[in-house]
């Protein structure tokens, strides 16, 4: 099967800065693909190359098997939802949504009908006459989405589309986006710096750092089996264990990761475990309590269900975890 989008050794350099450095990606048709990374990691540059706003310095890009280099954005069957929505301020909502249909010279009655249907899909029926300036952030976001899907593109690119929304709205939009993607069957490529968002929404995630793809996999693979210290740290807020520490437990000198919820925290002296430490900070997060524990100079994060009795700051505790909870990493970085 042809990939929806395929990047082969794609680099984009801005002067001496390598925004993207030999990136390889294969995005399957119909999947919800997330590009996750901190700001400046190259994920947005990657999106702009797929949309056609920018051209690669080297490498090869294919969209459904067709070469994309040198093809301007207006001749790509790819649409984008922009980070700050980029709605046209001089047009009302329905004109914004119908913009691409107007360019295709679809008859006026027909394009208004299709635009109204797209607005209906994003639950904004009846808002057509308003100006973008009269809408809330969440509503603008929906208009941007309707404008991008009205054309039924093969690939929909979303550049941190939920970044400007407040938490509650963001969570409900995450679910809606996922449902929309399922019902439309369009390939979604979603850029975000929010690991929770990427893990909860995507079928597969690519983690970017320093212009390189660090790891590609399902959310579960990325979370449970990070291949590098960066992924462990950025995605799971996992504990990264230094080789010395790992050697003292498993006898191998390797970097490893350990998820906070895999650590059992017990009151000192109630277990045979040799590992005793002191609680440095204790943060109540609702369902869980997050603890920072000092273990003879090694800092470990543990998260404990808040339904259990959780010791307070300064108290001595004994730690325990299964040996196979320690995940050895392939990559030393």
């Amino acid at each position: 099967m042809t990939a929806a989008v395929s990047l082969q050794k794609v680099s984009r350099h801005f002067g001496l800065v390598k925004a993207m450095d030999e990136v390889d990606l294969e995005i399957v048709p119909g999947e919800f693909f997330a590009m996750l990374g901190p700001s400046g990691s190259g994920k947005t540059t990657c999106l702009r190359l797929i949309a056609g706003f920018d051209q690669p310095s080297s490498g090869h890009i294919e969209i459904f098997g067709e070469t994309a280099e040198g093809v301007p954005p207006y001749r790509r069957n790819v649409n984008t939802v922009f980070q700050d929505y980029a709605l046209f301020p001089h047009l009302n909502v329905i004109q914004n949504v119908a913009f691409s249909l107007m360019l295709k010279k679809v008859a006026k009655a027909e394009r208004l009908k299709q635009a109204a249907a797209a607005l209906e899909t994003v639950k904004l029926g009846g808002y057509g006459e308003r100006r973008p300036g009269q809408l809330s952030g969440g509503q603008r976001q929906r208009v941007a989405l309707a404008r991008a899907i009205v054309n039924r593109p093969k690939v929909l690119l979303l550049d941190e589309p939920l970044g400007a929304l407040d938490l509650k709205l963001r969570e409900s939009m995450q679910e809606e986006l996922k449902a929309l993607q399922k019902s439309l069957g369009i390939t979604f490529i979603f850029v975000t710096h929010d690991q929770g968002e990427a893990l909860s929404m995507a079928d597969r995630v690519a983690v970017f750092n320093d212009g390189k793809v660090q790891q590609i996999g399902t959310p579960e693979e990325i979370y449970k089996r990070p291949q590098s210290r960066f992924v462990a740290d950025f995605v799971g807020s996992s504990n990264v264990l230094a080789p010395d520490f790992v050697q003292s437990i498993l006898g191998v000198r390797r970097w490893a990761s350990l998820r906070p919820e895999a650590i059992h925290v017990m009151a000192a002296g109630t277990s045979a475990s040799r590992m005793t430490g002191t609680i440095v900070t204790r943060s109540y997060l609702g369902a869980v309590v997050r603890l920072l524990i000092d273990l003879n100079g090694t800092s470990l994060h543990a998260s404990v269900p808040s339904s259990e009795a959780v010791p307070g700051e300064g108290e001595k505790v004994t730690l325990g975890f299964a040996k196979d909870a320690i995940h050895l990493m392939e990559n030393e970085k």
Partner: protein
Amino acid sequence: MSAEAAILPGRGGLFGGLSDTFWRRPKLFVFLLLLPAALWLGIVYLGSLFALLLQSFFHIDDFSGLVVHEFTLKTYAELFKPQNFDIIVRTASMAAMVTIASAIVAVPIAYVAARYAKRRWKALFYLAVMLPLWSSYLVKVYAWKLVLAKEGIITWVFEQLHISPALDAILAIPVIGGNSLSFSFIGTFLVFLYIWLPYMILPIQAAVERVPVNLIDASADLGAHPLATFRHVIFPLALPGIVAGSIFTFSLTLGDYIIPQIVGNGRLFIGQVVYTQQGTAGNIPLAAAFTVVPIVIMGLYLWGARRMGAFDAL
């Protein structure tokens, strides 16, 4: 032991007291900020303008040549006499042509300056646009008279290129042609265009600069090729700038009385009539009535621009 810092230290002094008062009463501060401009525009400028307009409702006694201070529309009726109406039509069409031509010349350069020029190029752009404004208006107009004269460089260039007949053909066109460019309507037009062009470029540049780049990306993303993006996104968003610029070029051309006096075929413009009527002819009511014409035209123009949605993107 050192003294503890006060929690609410007083500033004291005249300025301390003043700034505290302003902080507590922001409206007083706003009032004081507006006062100089309000005095100047409200009393000195608007006041004298209304005094002038009042004159237009008087008329001059044909026999004695004295102003009769009675309300009448007789002076306005005079504007519609063929010889006066011609002047109005001539001036308004010149202003319209100068405005359209400056918009056509200004949009591309303003677009390049706003979109592509960075740092030094941008400084160079501002310098190039503003530099002509630093030198005397009269010097520039007289320089143009030399450029456009029969012995001037334009005639010379046409001769060197062996296309003098083309120039002669243009000058042979009735009404807009003449003996030479410097004695023709075309010449007047060219000088107006040069003199007022900066006032068109700067507002358009400011308007284009405010168009977010991602709107242009979005337009392309939705399938618009560059020309369609210009037509459907950049032009509508730059329109308030174009209207602002056209207010300058249009009203400045309507009111000018020096350029047509130096470069042109001797046919009168509104400004020249106002100048002669209130000066040598001593017919202040007619001069005042002529002054009302540009104000009415500008009013209609702005009303029309607003109706057509030129300010919707503001």
